[in-house]
């Protein structure tokens, strides 16, 4: 036993973490694994900043009156919460952390196609983030994360251009990442790694990358025009010269709807891996899940008008977008059914990653189905811009993506850090997150249906009990998020050393040491099995 630990320690002495030392070797690294850690550090920081804004909002909402903060400040709170969470946490969260770390490993490559571009993307992202934080510091933005005109271009007195500039810049980091991943997945697969032997994590990230590359530039140009209109007062999107505010919405949502698929597809990527590993079974209907990822990416571009049903677009447009929005739910549902079928007759174990994965499946399903409510024109007229919508997207983004992110972090933590996290407390924190989440957001469905508008700090007193439940939940949720931060950091130094394949899972990333050497593999792997080949797994391949 002691020789095994000694061997593990010896392996860990020559890993990507230790082979080069000093701050310069981190800030100038081109190793995708180190870049993944740089991103993890940033993304975690932004998550907690965005979370603080959320907590302040929920504190204000404890009482019907606008008493904790002014209405103007409240506008700034929800705007900054949205901007930071969407662009600086959710969009980079899984792709730039787990994606960066794992994609080359899962395909058997030494690095991504363009390693220096990868490093540049982190700096670009940080530059954008710093500019946005500066805007916060100088007083914030009060337009909502959606920047609707003409308020954002003519009437708002806050740092709109600063915030827009920060987001514009960080968008290029997205484009660089997407480009890098597409080139990597096409060109750098190991011998024998055909498209249909790829882990579904790769398929989902490929789909995500396509969206990165095709949608983000439209956001860039929209924000550019917004800045031009605001600075020069030239009415591209507002009435005086004949501009149309709805055109801004078309262009904004052309990006922002696919963006929500950028946020959820990587979560689905993680769940596919976790469900297979903790059922010890191949994902049911691999081909269907793979094509479903691609379908979500494609169909996701055809539905943006469902954010604009009451904005003034034509009725025919609205009808078209409604039908397509129903259609786009189908591939997501296929994935949920297939994950569920994977569980059937599987050998299921309930480690923390699996708790998060199952949580994802349930909560994403609720979030997704409420999306169908919203896709129905008649219902949408009633619940649009209410807390129903807020609950819908938080079920997907938080109940879905954040849980998948945490699940993935736990699952691959041994590979990334060479340490095991503490299983007991992690299960407790998963449970805390799940309970806190539902207590926070389920009451919001009721609130929205009863008519509570979103982005309001004041409300009728009969809604107060629901807001109190929600704020209580948010507090519990916050505790649930702080716990992993603490025990992950603790485990980095004090956690037990992890073997190469602690979960005895399939996948090339588990065929190398934990943590891996800089070049990932001692020799280039040759792939002869299909993905998730648990049935065919020979004893000697299961490294312990």
């Amino acid at each position, binding site marked *: 036993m002691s020789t095994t630990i000694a061997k593990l320690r010896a392996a860990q002495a020559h890993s990507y973490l230790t082979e080069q030392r000093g701050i310069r070797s981190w800030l100038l690294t081109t190793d995708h694994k180190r870049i993944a850690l740089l991103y993890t550090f940033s993304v975690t920081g932004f998550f907690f900043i965005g979370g603080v804004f959320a907590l302040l909002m929920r504190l204000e909402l404890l009482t019907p009156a606008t008493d904790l903060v002014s209405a103007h400040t409240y506008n700034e709170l929800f705007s900054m919460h949205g901007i930071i969470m969407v662009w600086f946490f959710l969009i980079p969260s899984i792709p730039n952390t787990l994606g960066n770390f794992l994609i*080359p490993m899962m395909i058997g*490559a*030494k*690095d*991504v*196609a*363009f*390693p220096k571009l990868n490093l540049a993307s982190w700096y670009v992202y940080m530059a954008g983030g710093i500019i946005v934080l500066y805007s916060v510091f100088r007083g914030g933005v009060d337009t909502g994360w959606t920047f609707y005109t003409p308020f954002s271009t003519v009437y708002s007195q806050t740092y709109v251009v600063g915030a827009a500039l920060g987001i514009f810049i960080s968008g290029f980091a997205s*484009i660089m990442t997407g*480009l*890098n991943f*597409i*080139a990597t997945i*096409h*060109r*750098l697969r190991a011998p024998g790694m055909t498209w249909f032997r790829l882990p579904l994590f790769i398929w989902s990230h490929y789909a995500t990358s396509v969206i990165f*590359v*095709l*949608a*983000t*530039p*439209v956001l*860039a*140009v*929209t924000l*550019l*025009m917004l800045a*031009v209109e605001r*600075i*020069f*007062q*030239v*009415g*591209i999107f507002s009435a*005086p*010269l*004949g*501009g*149309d505010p709805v*055109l801004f919405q078309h*262009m904004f949502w*052309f990006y922002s709807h696919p963006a929500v698929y950028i946020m959820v597809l990587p979560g689905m990527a993680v769940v596919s891996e976790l469900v297979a590993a903790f059922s010890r079974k191949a994902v049911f209907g691999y081909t269907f899940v793979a094509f479903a990822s691609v379908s979500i990416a494609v169909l996701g571009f055809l539905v943006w008008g469902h954010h604009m049903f009451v904005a003034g677009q034509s009725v025919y447009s609205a009808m078209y977008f409604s039908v397509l929005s129903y259609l786009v739910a189908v591939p997501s549902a296929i994935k949920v059914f297939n994950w569920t079928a994977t569980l059937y007759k599987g050998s299921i174990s309930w480690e923390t990653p699996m708790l998060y994965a199952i949580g994802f499946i349930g909560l994403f399903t609720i979030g997704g189905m409420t999306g169908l409510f919203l896709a129905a024109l008649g219902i949408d007229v009633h619940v649009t811009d209410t807390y129903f919508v807020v609950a819908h997207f938080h079920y997907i983004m938080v109940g879905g993506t954040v849980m998948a992110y945490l699940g993935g972090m736990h699952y691959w933590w041994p590979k990334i850090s060479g340490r095991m996290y503490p299983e007991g407390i992690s299960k407790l924190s998963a449970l805390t997150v799940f309970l806190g989440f539902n207590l926070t957001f389920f009451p919001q469905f009721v609130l929205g249906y009863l008519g509570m508008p979103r982005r309001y700090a004041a409300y009728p007193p009969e809604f107060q009990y629901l807001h109190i439940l929600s704020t209580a939940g948010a507090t519990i949720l916050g505790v649930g998020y702080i716990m992993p931060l603490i025990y992950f950091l603790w485990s980095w130094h004090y956690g037990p050393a992890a073997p190469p394949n602690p979960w005895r899972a399939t996948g090339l990333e588990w065929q190398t040491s934990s943590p891996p050497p800089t*070049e990932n593999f001692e020799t*280039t792997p040759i792939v002869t099995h299909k993905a998730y080949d648990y049935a065919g797994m020979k004893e000697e391949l299961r490294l312990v």
Partner: protein
Amino acid sequence: MFSPPASMLREHYSTPEQQRETVTVGMWIFLATEVMLFGGLFTAFAVYRMYYTRGFDQGSAEMSILLGSINTAVLLTSSLTMALAIYSAAAGRLLRTYGLLLLTAVIGIAFLAIKFTEYYQHYQQHKVPGVWFESSSPDAGALQLFYVFYFAMTGLHAVHMSIGIALVVFYAFRTAAGRFSSEYYTPLEALGLYWHFVDIVWIFLFAIFYISGLHT
């Protein structure tokens, strides 16, 4: 025969051919993002043109077809010199490549010079929205909108041209320093793709801004 010298092969690639093809695909993907970037502006332009055809036709009539056509020819010429520069590199005639790249840059600067001449003319005619715009036309609002798109789109194009010219000069000097050979000139190929794409954008800008008001 066409493989780069060993030192040019990055660690994580297994063959030079793989590296060259990956860089090419990477550049094409980047150009796809540029299509979407300009595409947003073309879409917005199309919407407003549909609504304000008369005002936009008037704006188009105020453009200088002479300068616009000359500029189009100028840019197409720079594409030719760029293509020939790369052709020369493939044929191992790197001195020619160096000369043709410099020529491309010079022609590119000529394009920008003509463009800024046009901008200055617009300024003298008080047709720069947000800076100095006057019009007695009944379609003044639509006309101003036309000019907003004109300056935004040709301006964004000019930014791309400037970056391109700087890169062409940079790579011309690298060529002169002997960094490339008939076996390895991948960065030049990527640069060529970018240059031609910027030319294509201008081809469409010329079509939408300069033609529709010509008949008046």
